[in-house]
């Protein structure tokens, strides 16, 4: 059983990283967007592996089902060209800096995880959805409400921007 979990973990990791790499390297916009979707799927799979199916499904419902569609709309409506033709050749210095910017936080996180490894139990028990709901509306009520305020602000801002451009 454990072996299967490792195989699944490897598969999802490849999905995550491969999708992400595809998304940032490919010139075609919609292909990059597909790469992003694949990567998000990998993340959902990891949630499943962590015995959090609710979060995993939410990941699919929200990110793959809704956000991806939104991105597509943005691509179509803004009339972006099929290929990102106006990509300027990035200089070597910029590339090095970009790699560093990704690498430094990653290595910092990795060091922290290795040094202060989290005590794990062999079998994580899934949290019941009812408990999750109670936690969100009880002790984490404020955070929950704040998130909705942020979302509302984002929506209002989008509408405002949309109307401004039309005039």
């Amino acid at each position: 059983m454990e072996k299967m979990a490792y195989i699944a973990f490897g598969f999802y990791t490849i999905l995550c990283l491969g999708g992400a790499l595809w998304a940032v390297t490919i010139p075609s916009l919609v292909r990059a967007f597909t790469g992003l979707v694949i990567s998000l799927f990998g993340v959902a799979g990891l949630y499943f592996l962590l015995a959090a199916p609710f979060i995993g499904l939410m990941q699919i419902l929200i990110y793959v089902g809704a956000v991806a569609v939104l991105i597509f709309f943005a691509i179509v409506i803004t009339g972006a060209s099929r290929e990102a033709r106006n990509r300027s050749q990035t200089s070597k210095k910029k590339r090095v800096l970009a790699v560093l910017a990704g690498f430094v936080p990653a290595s910092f996180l990795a060091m922290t995880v290795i040094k202060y490894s989290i005590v794990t139990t062999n079998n994580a028990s899934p949290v019941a959805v009812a408990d999750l709901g109670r936690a969100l509306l009880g002790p984490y009520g404020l955070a929950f409400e704040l998130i909705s305020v942020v979302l509302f602000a984002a929506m209002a801002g989008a509408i405002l921007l949309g109307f401004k451009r039309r005039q």
Partner: protein
Amino acid sequence: MIPTIPAELLRLLIFTVAILAFVSLNALILVWLERKLAGHFQVRPGPFEVGPHGLLQTLCDGLKLMGKQLVAPAAADKRLFWLAPILAFAPVFLCFLPIPFGPTLLGMEFEIGVVLILAFTGLSVLATILAGWGSNNKFSLLGASRAVSQAVAYEVPLLITVLGIVMYSGSLNFSEIVAMQGSWPWQWNIMLQPLGFFIFFICSLAECNRAPFDLPEAESELTAGFHTEYSSMGFGLFFFAEYTNMVIVSSVGTALFLGGWHGPFVDGWWWFAAKVYFLIFVMMWMRWTFPRVRFDQLLNLSWKWLIPLALINIFYVAVLVKI
């Protein structure tokens, strides 16, 4: 998520194969049924030549479809182009997993089955997008963007009405929701939330791209919309997915509102099947009797009528739950 016993895995495998058989057979029957019904509703012949009452018609259609050449437009994005029909069809199997066809006849007891179905039916939108974009064709792209705006518009009231049922029964598990309803029609959720069922049914029609909401296809003005460029089984898979989606939304409607496998006298999967096929019959009935709506009418119907009505419904459910 990983099953702890291989027996469970084996059961899932058998279930998947059974679903595959069911889906194929179902598509054959539904296509035949639709054409027969169209014939009767509009007083025209319909299939009659192949086999008794044209029963073998769809089998021949299927063979014809498979015999055709797979063609992709030269300037199309080939990978995305072929990914789309597969993506339209693949999630279908997952959606059947948590649906309880009978007291014991279900793929997997899943605590959050409702969320699973909502999450995976959303993938068909993605497939439509990729098909429309990958075809490198203006009609396809227009069809795809129409499909997306339609799906986004109708997903909102659909989710809100489903939420009404979830609030009332306090569970996201299909088996529990079904178990809470009684055998007789007045004990079903539809009696408590008729408005909810009404909205759910309209939205599920729209989500399946069924007439009168089949605008993404729109043969007359968009020359078949997002699947214009698909030949052979590329088109076949989209077609398959449409008919299977009809079964899924009808099953969900049956489980949530119509008491699932409960029925007068003897409970069992036969009641479930009867209700599902009755809902599908109503869908076909609507297809051949209602005129297609205009696109602005379609969006207005969702944003100005169905969403406010769904909100009223959920308010009513909240009051109902508290009493």
